[in-house]
């Protein structure tokens, strides 16, 4: 587009020819009031509040609406002349004769110095600016709104004035309506897209949660208007860096890599099947992850520890070992729960005045500074009871409404206890991912009985695996806390780097070799090799092994009818010697 020079209130600016005067004024920081303008839909000049004087090169002056008056070379725009102000007042007074009480109008009236509109004050709430109609048509693409009737009877409605399926309940009209005339209501079993759900951001485009990695917004195609109508894309228009792509889809990519660090983590144990704890059945029985979310400053309660009724609990029980150290669930210790349970107690004490009960089997405060932290908790007045929480039941009539009774055997006091609390936190086990076995198989490693990946050696190879170049980091190998996971991750990264930085791979000298003299060229071994390491030499009519590809399994050596293949380190004569040795 060619550029033109115009002036606004005497200030020069270069703008694209045909762009609107309102935008030029905005660029100069000159305020022109408007009610019906939205950058991403075509200007409509309905409210006529944005009137200005435009003087062309021949000196002729006209009253125009700034929102849709195109810039042309040499025009002068005057936004504050007495004539402009009088016209604005007139236009506003006419709008107020229709609907006077809307805050947006009264505020403007105050600015323009209107005390009493000359033609009375109407009680309507719609100024017929048409923003809703235009946004529904141009951006959303739903075309669910339109004007009906004419003249003073004109109004905005859905087709045929009935509840329409054309409306996708996106709420764009309600969001843009300057007077608040349009409201969103859920009716007929249809959900509003932007309904208020308190647990997290649910806008169609949002950062999933505050500490998300990567900390970038993502589009939820279930809610995004573009994926329902093909329109909108306002976010892409707004983004100055052009980061937003609506065409990006989930896809699988093949990456060629030299090393792999498996850090697939864990899944949380679901305590629902343990009926005695009433998770999902009793109110205010939550898991440690849910407590952690609630405790998060960016969480649903803004970091406040609250019960379902929104009140602060008077007493909280924290139950250790839910699903771990339990022959009916996982026999192993989840390792992190003791310490985070103590942390929970500390946080509850810090944020509320609630009594805290810790119910544990054994307290495993094994790490640096952990035992000291435990003592600090004791000094803070946390009730620490040695005895696993056995059952949670509703309190009887003698207790206040909503009281939960935690039953346990206090093994130190040697007596049965029933502790009335308002909230129970279940410290659930860390559990191997349900598909860990598939992942292990894919990488040629194994999983143990509990589903954790098996390292090369429990003491001497805790980071590497039986497959060269595949390393383990974090809980996917076994439950561990953050310092341990970081340590293992650093180890895995360092081992991976040391392989890659060398640029070459050291073989351990175990591979198969084929004796040319003995090979009959039957090619049986060619198909036996799972790595296609054995090739056939057409001129010599013999097979040969590529040592770089050979992984030394020895399947070919066992299958060679001529005995021509020698699996180095596991050669026939070596194994025969072993047999002889152990049987002599």
């Amino acid at each position: 587009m060619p550029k033109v020079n115009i002036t606004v209130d005497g200030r020069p600016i270069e703008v694209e020819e045909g762009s609107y005067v309102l935008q030029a004024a905005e660029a100069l920081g000159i305020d022109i009031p408007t009610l019906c303008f939205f950058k991403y839909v075509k200007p409509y000049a309905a409210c006529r509040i944005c009137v200005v004087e435009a003087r062309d090169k021949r000196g002729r002056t006209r009253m125009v609406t700034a929102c849709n008056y195109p810039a042309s070379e040499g025009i002068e725009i005057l936004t504050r002349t007495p004539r402009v102000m009088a016209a604005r007042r007139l236009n506003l007074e006419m709008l107020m004769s229709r609907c006077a009480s809307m805050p947006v109008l009264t505020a403007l009236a105050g600015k323009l110095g209107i005390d009493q509109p000359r033609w009375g004050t109407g009680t309507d709430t719609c100024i017929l600016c048409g923003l809703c109609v235009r946004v529904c048509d141009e951006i959303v693409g739903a075309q669910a709104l339109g004007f009906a009737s004419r003249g003073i009877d004109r109004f905005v409605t859905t087709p045929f004035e009935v509840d329409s399926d054309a409306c996708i309940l996106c709420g764009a009209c309600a969001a843009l309506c300057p007077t608040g005339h349009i409201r969103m209501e859920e009716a007929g079993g249809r959900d509003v897209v932007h309904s208020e759900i308190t647990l997290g951001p649910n806008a169609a485009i949002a950062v999933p949660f505050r500490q998300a990695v990567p900390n970038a917004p993502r589009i939820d195609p279930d809610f995004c208007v573009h994926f329902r109508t093909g329109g909108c894309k306002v976010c892409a228009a707004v983004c100055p860096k052009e980061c937003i792509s609506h065409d990006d889809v989930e896809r699988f990519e093949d990456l060629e890599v030299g090393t792999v660090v498996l850090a697939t983590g864990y899944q949380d144990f679901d305590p629902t099947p343990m009926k005695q704890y009433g998770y999902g059945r009793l109110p205010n029985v939550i898991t440690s992850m849910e407590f952690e979310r609630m405790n998060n400053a960016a969480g649903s309660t803004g970091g406040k520890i609250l019960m379902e009724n929104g009140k602060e609990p008077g007493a909280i029980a924290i139950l250790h070992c839910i699903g771990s150290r339990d022959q009916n669930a996982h026999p192993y210790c989840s390792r992190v729960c003791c310490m985070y349970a103590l942390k929970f107690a500390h946080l509850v004490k810090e944020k509320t005045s609630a009594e805290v009960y810790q119910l544990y089997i054994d307290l495993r405060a094994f790490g640096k500074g952990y035992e000291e932290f435990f003592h600090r908790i004791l000094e803070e007045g946390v009730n620490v009871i040695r005895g696993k929480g056995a059952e949670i039941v509703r309190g009887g009539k003698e207790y206040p409404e909503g009281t939960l009774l935690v039953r346990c055997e206090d093994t130190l006091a040697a007596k049965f206890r029933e502790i009335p609390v308002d909230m129970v936190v279940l410290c659930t086990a860390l559990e191997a991912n349900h598909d860990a076995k598939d992942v292990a198989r894919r990488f040629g490693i194994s999983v143990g009985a509990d589903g954790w990946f098996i390292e090369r050696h429990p003491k001497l190879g805790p980071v590497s695996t039986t497959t060269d170049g595949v390393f383990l980091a974090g809980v996917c190998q076994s439950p561990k806390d953050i310092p341990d996971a970081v340590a293992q991750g650093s180890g895995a990264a360092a081992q991976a780097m040391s392989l890659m930085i060398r640029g070459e791979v050291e073989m351990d000298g175990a591979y198969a070799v084929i004796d040319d003299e003995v090979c009959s060229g039957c090619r049986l071994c060619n198909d036996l090799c799972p790595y296609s390491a054995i090739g056939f030499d057409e001129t010599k009519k013999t097979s040969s092994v590529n040592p770089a590809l050979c992984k030394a399994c020895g399947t070919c050596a066992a299958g060679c009818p001529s005995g021509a293949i020698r699996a180095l380190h596991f050669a026939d004569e070596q194994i025969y010697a072993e047999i002889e040795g152990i049987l002599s």
Partner: protein
Amino acid sequence: MSFEPNLVGFLCNWCSYTGADLAGTARVKYPPNLKVIRVMCSGRVDPNFILDALARGADGVLVCGCHPGDCHYVEGNYKCQRRLPITRMLVGEMGIDPRRVRLEWVSASEGVRFGEVVSEFTEEIRSLGPLALQEWAFDPAAADAQLAHQGGEHA
């Protein structure tokens, strides 16, 4: 003195040998009759190894590999799975009870199972008694004649 079977085990390096290791570190109790030879893969087990072990006085041979689908070398255990039945037929034709040659899948995490497999195999061989290879077994012509006459150890 009661009969103590002399058993040879071929264990794949990645699953069964590690499983046997686990049986050791977990202090799983099982009979000491099995002498283990480590091979990289159950696919490495040449049927000749089994025959050689039996010829040298083993009362039974146990081959252990990764579970189907878990082979470190993708499919070595499948090769073993196809060779072993043929080997068993072969020893049967030689007049040896095929139960003396057994293939089992033991994963790296199955230390307890390894102990069970060894215990069970030891007991089975104990009940079968010592493998008595006759002199004729080492002479093809005599073996043919004997087989025609006897029809095998358990015919």
